[in-house]
């Protein structure tokens, strides 16, 4: 963003006037410059969101290094004995240590969610921006194709793909990305359309700037706000979808340690051994709340209405 403009503002006459002009309501007294970044950090909700997300990310990535016991059902002194009180949170139906499986089970979810979001953002951004910029027949074709993809609920689409290709990680990542793409494309397109009608794009055209450069250097930097919001939202939904698929038994496959799968495996014993369900459920809840708070805070900071769209 435009933070480096701070250092270049040297004109002493200008200084006080600008400080005065910056609306104290929004600058929140944190600094004299009022950018998306400062407005983001000025919100309590964004700091909370970052903290919650960071907490789960730390657990997920450091967890596998700190396993107190094995995640499988060998090598533990209480192996093969289901629902023991041993360890910190006891054992699951197959006698595996719940804490160990929990600590080891976050990486896959995080990794695949981020991958799916990134791939979806790439596809959506590409199609959305090209659609907006080129316009005409190509725009119509892309948007109609979007409508078609949007008419199949994400989860149902994923299930169709899994039926055909089997529950493999790359299938999950690809299919979640493909189902995100039309939604992202819509956001990118409408944001880009708003920018394309600005005269500075007409000016770039007039100066015969190469089209790719217009797309990536004139348009893209001006739609980062809505795209950041969208990325946050999509990450939230990716986590939800991949976890849901694992929960349905159609994502990560046994004997993998994975939060969604753990919930699936342990939910029958919810009354007997709640930890096996509750730990991953809590982790997923905190994670999605955190990412959603961040997305919403970015939306507020960039003052872009972007809610209500699933």
């Amino acid at each position, binding site marked *: 963003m435009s933070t480096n403009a701070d250092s270049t503002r040297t004109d002493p006459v200008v200084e006080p006037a600008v400080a005065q002009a910056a609306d104290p309501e929004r600058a929140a007294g944190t600094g004299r410059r009022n950018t998306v970044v400062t407005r983001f950090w000025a919100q309590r909700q964004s700091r909370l969101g970052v903290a919650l997300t960071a907490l789960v990310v730390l657990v997920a990535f450091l967890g596998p290094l700190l396993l107190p016991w094995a995640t499988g059902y060998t090598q533990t002194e209480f192996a093969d004995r289901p629902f023991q009180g041993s360890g910190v949170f006891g054992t699951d139906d197959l006698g595996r240590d719940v804490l160990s499986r929990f600590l080891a089970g976050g990486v896959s979810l995080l990794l695949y969610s981020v991958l799916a979001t990134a791939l979806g953002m790439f596809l959506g951004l590409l199609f959305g921006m090209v659609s907006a910029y080129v316009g005409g027949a190509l725009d119509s074709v892309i948007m109609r194709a979007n409508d078609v993809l949007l*008419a199949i609920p994400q989860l149902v689409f994923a*299930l*169709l793909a899994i039926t055909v290709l089997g529950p493999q990680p790359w299938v999950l990542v690809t299919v979640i990305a493909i189902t995100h793409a039309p939604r992202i494309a819509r956001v990118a397109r409408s944001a880009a359309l708003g920018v394309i009608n600005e005269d500075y794009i007409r000016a770039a055209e007039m100066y015969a700037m190469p089209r790719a450069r217009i797309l990536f250097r004139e348009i893209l930097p001006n739609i980062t706000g809505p795209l950041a919001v969208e990325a946050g939202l999509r990450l939230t939904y990716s986590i939800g979808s991949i976890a849901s698929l694992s929960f349905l038994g159609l994502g990560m496959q046994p004997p993998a340690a994975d939060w969604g799968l753990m919930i699936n495996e342990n939910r029958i014993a919810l009354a007997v051994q709640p930890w096996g*369900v509750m730990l991953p459920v809590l982790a997923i809840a905190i994670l*999605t709340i955190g990412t959603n708070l961040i997305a919403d805070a970015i939306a507020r900071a960039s003052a872009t209405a972007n*809610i209500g769209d699933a």
Partner: protein
Amino acid sequence: MIAKLIAKRLSISLLILLAISLIVFFATLLLPGDPARAILGQQATPERIAAINAQMRLDDPAWQRYLAWLGGLFTGDLGTSVASGQPVSEVVGDRLSASVFLMIAAAVISVPAGILLGIWSALRRGRAVDSAITGIALVLAALPEFVIGIALVALFATTVFRLLPAVTMAPPGTDVWDFPSQLILPTAVLVLVVTPYIARMMRATMLEVLDSGYVEMARLKGVPERRVILRHALPHAIGPVAQVAAIQLAWMAGGVVVVEFLFRFPGLGQALIDAVNYRDVQVVQAITMLVAVIYVIVNLLADIVGILANPKLRTGGEK
């Protein structure tokens, strides 16, 4: 004018459904290797493979099979379930009504609730009620449905209180609505998942409208506040909210899968999960098409509401 617009939307909807049928059908061509073998997996015997080949007419060219399948969709012949050997329409029939019942129950609660909460929140902008509604909606909107579902089950059915059944048990020959207490939790999950979106959208739309020039003008004309909201502000929020409500209701068609799985609710979603597990392609295709039809119909209705609510569209916008 209106009829023309609606006819146009209708034909677009039909085209979309046609395109979806192409995707749904030709996706199955991605089945690796011999589809019959892939479907049967471990249980593949030469006789069963031959049976499936005959049943799915796998020897015909793909486009012929597609046309036959598409024709079947129109006549109600959805093919035969490989797993159970029953016609798909039988597998799906009762379950469709159970699922639709669940979704309608959730919609009847969540749409008005979302709209009212959104309006309330907008009218109390910046006050405690607004912050509370906005905050709770933000948190609920983040949570996957199974998280909410498990939380409710733990709270009301197993760990904390044991007030409500955690699973649905409808003996054969009975309908899901014969056991209302079993419906409470599944409906509640759907309501909690859908309401926040509608409330947030309603709030955002209302805020925009309340800040508009014509609402300010109405106030400067001396229009009483009640009338300002009911006559000047609300009509403008109908269109956008209908859109979001439609998206959410259609989305429920996906969310209902998780909820049904969690509560063992004998609906389409449960059937879909079973079919995926058995690689029962015909059933998956049929259910996907049904869900898409539900989506398209709901969206069409929302579009029509939007057209009717907007005089500019209604009158064609000509001077």
